[in-house]
């Protein structure tokens, strides 16, 4: 139990590290969703460019995804059910990474549509799958921190549990 242990410096620091991870991940999802939500048709084309599903399915995914990203970003921002939110974020990121890997493996030349409406890569521009994956793995690490140490400062969870 935490009560019995004498808190080491690291134990005292974890809530702060987790808080940074939580706010960082929140920003990632809010920005990613915000950039897409203004043009759902473009978002649909970005999903469709992965060539993994029919256009009609891509259209639905493309429309729903930005709203989910924004909602998840807001949930992380206020820090509610942090561990669950982080788990959902991790699942979403794993799906994104899998999508990029599959596009890379099939030699598609597309923009991942991660922080844009993506889709179309016209002559001259080349896809940067390696960097995209590396970045997503970084985000996954943030989610990992929260899964492991979900206690954070300035969170609704903390408020509801009567922590300071």
């Amino acid at each position: 139990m935490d009560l019995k242990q004498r808190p080491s410096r690291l134990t005292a620091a974890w809530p702060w590290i987790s808080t940074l991870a939580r706010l960082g991940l929140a920003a990632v999802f809010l920005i990613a969703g915000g950039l897409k939500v203004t043009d759902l048709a473009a978002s649909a084309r970005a999903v469709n460019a992965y060539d993994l599903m029919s256009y009609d399915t891509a259209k639905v995914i493309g429309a729903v995804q930005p709203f989910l990203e924004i909602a998840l970003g807001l949930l992380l921002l206020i820090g509610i059910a942090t561990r669950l939110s982080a788990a959902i974020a991790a699942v979403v990121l794993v799906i994104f990474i899998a999508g990029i890997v599959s596009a890379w493996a099939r030699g598609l030349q597309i923009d991942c549509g991660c922080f844009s409406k993506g889709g179309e890569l016209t002559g001259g521009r080349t896809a940067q799958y390696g960097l995209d994956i590396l970045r997503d793995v970084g985000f996954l690490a943030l989610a990992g921190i929260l899964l492991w140490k979900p206690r954070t400062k300035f969170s609704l969870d903390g408020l509801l549990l009567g922590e300071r």
Partner: protein
Amino acid sequence: MSKGNRGRDRTAAKRIVEQQKAAERRRRVTIWTSVGVVAVLLIAGLVGWRVLANQDSGTAQASTPSVAVDDGTAFAVGSGPVTVDIYEDFMCPICHEFEQQTGPAIAQMVTDKKVTVRYHPVSILDRASNGTEYSTRSAGAAAAAAVDGKFVEYHKVLFDNQPEEGSSGLDNAKLIELGKSVGLGDTFAQAVNDKTYDSWATKATETFASRGYNGTPTIVVNGKQVTGPNESLPTTEILTQAVTAAAG
């Protein structure tokens, strides 16, 4: 049992009760916040679904230009045996490059009755005009020009006057002025101002995407996409060869 021991037992019992209470509270908070998270995500998904449905009903009512061919998505030029489909966004610099580089050769093939060119204006770069949706407006204007029989001319002036990608694009007054310069009149001006064919442009862009194309320009000769090495822009030579091969 000494007094001290009893006192310690009592505090221990108190602590256990407090811990149980805290655990119970944590359990309740975890359950309800989890329910909250799932509910919020479900609602967000439904909102996205609803917005999509609304947009779909908008494009379903789109008025298709009378002269459009290929499921109402394109404007045909020429009457040759080989079909060349060209998907372009009037905001796309590489489309402009393609028109400058290969446009004259295509015009020649049209004159020689070798090809029928089907121009598909699409609007994939709406994000690149500061929210004025220049891609959609210009594609809609091109449709209006086609209805009045001036597609080729208007297509040319639009590319000759292409605004910089990321700028606000040309405003409607300028689109109308360009139309006048190629002999388009009041019906054209009204169609531009009324955005008569703007939802058609959105719909044509959806058809483009549903055919599996992602970028502009996309050039298709008799159903087969033509690109340069590494999916780059095809040179005039590559396109000419593709047309010759398709003609058999």
